[in-house]
């Protein structure tokens, strides 16, 4: 299975600022996804990160708030823009390999 790393592992940010989360995979993958997991909740897909084109966002998520880059087949970034306390969550990168999706360790974000 793919080995996925995320940076930072956690951060505490001030309201109104932005944070960029990096996701690195140890092999080339076609499909990469970004999920949000609010405290004590399930996982919600934010967007599919497409290599060489714009990300595909799910209902309720917009590019201005969550811009995503996918410059190659092993790397992606998610930016959480103009943060508010409601953005406090775990943000997870996921990759698809075969029939399966594997998750990174997550980035725990706290917004004050």
């Amino acid at each position, binding site marked *: *299975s793919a080995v*996925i790393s995320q940076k930072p592992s956690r951060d505490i940010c001030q309201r109104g600022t932005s944070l960029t989360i990096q996701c690195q995979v140890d092999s080339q993958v076609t*499909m990469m*996804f970004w999920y949000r997991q609010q405290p004590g*909740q*399930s*996982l*919600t*897909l934010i967007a*599919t990160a497409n290599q060489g084109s714009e990300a*595909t966002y799910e209902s309720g998520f917009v590019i201005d708030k969550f811009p995503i880059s996918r410059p190659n087949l092993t790397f992606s970034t998610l930016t959480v823009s103009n943060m508010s306390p409601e953005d406090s969550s775990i943000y*997870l990168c*996921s990759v*698809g390999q075969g*029939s*399966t*999706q*594997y*998750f*990174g*360790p*997550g980035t*725990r974000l706290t917004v004050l």
Partner: protein
Amino acid sequence: QQQVKQSPQSLIVQKGGISIINCAYENTAFDYFPWYQQFPGKGPALLIAIRPDVSEKKEGRFTISFNKSAKQFSLHIMDSQPGDSATYFCAARGSDAGGTSYGKLTFGQGTILTVHP
């Protein structure tokens, strides 16, 4: 139609007992049903998965039972151990009504399993 409903929300089992978590779905386009295990502070880890053409899959102490006609599937953990204490998520993968978003996982609400020694 994209929802996956999971129950119970929490479960307490004695060591050695059987833990059973249930999920139900509505979208018949789902074609792959994984279960994930998540420990605090960690990302979800794939535990076991099944396709709808199979009624049961067993891997060690973990078994998925799948009922296609009822659109339900369940995870059974035999001989539950304190180390199994974690949050478990069922999920379903497939395209939406328009045939897009293939590969996207829809998750259940999660079950917090506690196994007492």
